[in-house]
């Protein structure tokens, strides 16, 4: 199972870390993942600690990390922030 960048075995999603997350994990772009994986599982696979991600936006909609990725999804990851 899992992720093999750029091999397009199953489906392609675009993952974009925003703001401070880039300092932890750099820029990520298109990756290929197997169908049926959640955002949380995908984050683990690409080496991002899900606890450092505050917001998951899929095609501009706020989703939970349990969202099952679909082919062509554009996923933005917002870093944890500072509260009030």
């Amino acid at each position, binding site marked *: 199972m899992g992720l093999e960048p750029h091999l397009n075995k199953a489906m392609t999603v675009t993952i974009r870390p925003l703001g401070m997350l880039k300092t932890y994990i750099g820029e990520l772009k298109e990756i290929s993942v197997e169908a049926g994986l959640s955002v949380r599982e995908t984050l683990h696979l690409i080496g991002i600690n899900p*606890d450092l991600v*505050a917001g998951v936006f899929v095609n501009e909609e706020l989703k939970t990390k349990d969202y099952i990725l679909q082919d062509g999804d554009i996923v*933005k990851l917002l870093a*944890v922030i*500072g509260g009030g």
Partner: protein
Amino acid sequence: MNGYGGSILRVNLTDGKLTKEPTPAQLAKDFIGGRGFGAYFLFKEVPKGADPLGQENKLIISTGPLSGMLAPGGGKCDWTTKSPLTGGYADASMGGHFTAELKYAGLDSIILEGVSPTPVYLFIETDKILLLDASSLWGKGAIDVEVELKHKYGEEYQVAAIGPGGENQVLYACINHDFGRQAGRGGVGAVMGSKKLKAIVLHGTKSVPVADLEGYRKAGMALYKACKDAEGLAEWSRYGTTIVTTWCNEVGALPTRNFSAGSFELADNINGQAMRNEIVITDKGCFGCPSPCGKYSNMKRYNTQVEGPEYETIGLMGSNLGIGDIQAVAEANRLADDLGIDTISAGSCIGWAMECYEKGILTKADTDGLELKFGNIDAVFALIKKIAYREGKIGNLLALGVKRAAQQVGKGSEKFAIQVKGMEQSAYATHNATAMLLAYMTCDVGAHHNRSWAITYDLQVGRDKVVPEKVARVIWLQNFRPMFDVMGSCRLQWVELGIDRDLYCPLLEAITGVKRSWQDLEAVGNRIWNLTRMYWVRENDSFGREWDLPAQRFYTDPPKTGATAGQITKFEDVQRLLDMYYDQRGWDTNGLPTQGTLETLNLTTLVT
């Protein structure tokens, strides 16, 4: 003086005398402004042992060199005083549009002194300054007063007002402005109420001198461009601080039922998405803000509106009270704002009372008949009113803050009074997040998050690890983040959008003509941190290590549910954190700054 209004206004409420004096250049050099000015004036002018609610205490409102300028979020001012809640140092940062008008009135600080014999409000229209009768305003809600004064004077006049909570000197009363911004913590509203000052109305028309006009324009525009170009701006602006709710729930940091857990089964009903879908009407920003985090909300069920709730209110008035209903949380927010009490402290006090009730420590005989079970929305609304008006046994008890309330009630309730130094902890549960726990333990106003938000670092390096790097991180944040409160601008553009903090240095230099690196600014932050520490030492004979201990719950009582179930910080690790912290700060083993540290920071003359 470039970057400054140029004057300090003293308002003696006892005799009505109003005086202006030039802002000292040396003060601007050493302490820059905002919280720095406040800490300096408090230490220097308020005598040791002053009653926080008496004649001798002062309430100091200060702008910074970025306030009212072409700086993202340059709408912050700082309200500094001796806290009636803690007996120590307090400052509360307030956004909105008040600060800019203060600067345009030519003022860097207003120092409120004495006690008025009758209710008054302060009216400032540039150089026209008056104390006016407020007897018709006394007793009214803070929002109502703002509406009334805006109607009387005009939309361009900015208003800061207290509600009944401040008048009745609830020890965590706040000051409201701009229909939903507060100087919230430490009881600054109670101090204003003790002075019989109901409101300040303000409008200024002066310009501010700038050292390098072209450099100012370029540096200011560069900062705005960085904000506008920041990836994540749209997402952040859509949800504001509430976006963190789901994340806190996931990592066990969302205060739940008086911090007995860090995850709430109804979190999805009160998170940012629920709020946006159910109650938000539009966004709202403070002066000069390119990334508005404020949200105006409409609560259909109650037919009311509020600016909010922010994450902190969702945490303390929602999950902490077992309430999974965003409309109810927003209505509690509205009540607290209008009545003028801090939602964080009020939520903590009510959560503690609910736990007391469920454990049989408090009964209906103590609660004026209220069924104080977690999740009882009507009881929460009733209690907010009782606290603000100090009504009945329970209202009077909870108006004292959770530390004093637990001391009065006893029966083991001290163990779950969630506070440090007498200030109720804000909305991050710290059963197993040692850097964040240390940040709360050592914060210079009590258990507040804004100085050092270190919980991310816990998750990066291992949440239960107790290592020098964590301590260093907490100290760095404590020296660095409050500098935004010194400069008079919002920190959220750096925190949330991740813009390069070095962009602030050329702007500050172009405005003031003084070149400062972040290393220089952090040195000022360190000096202020040690000054506020010495204030605690001066005002409390027994001050020392014991004062830095966290709420017992975090080292004795692991959550039974949620992401941190079964997890806890060992008491020996709490002590190790303090050992390392004191050592790295240059303080002795009891937590007092050493003579050598004070000399290095050039503070010896001021503090002796």
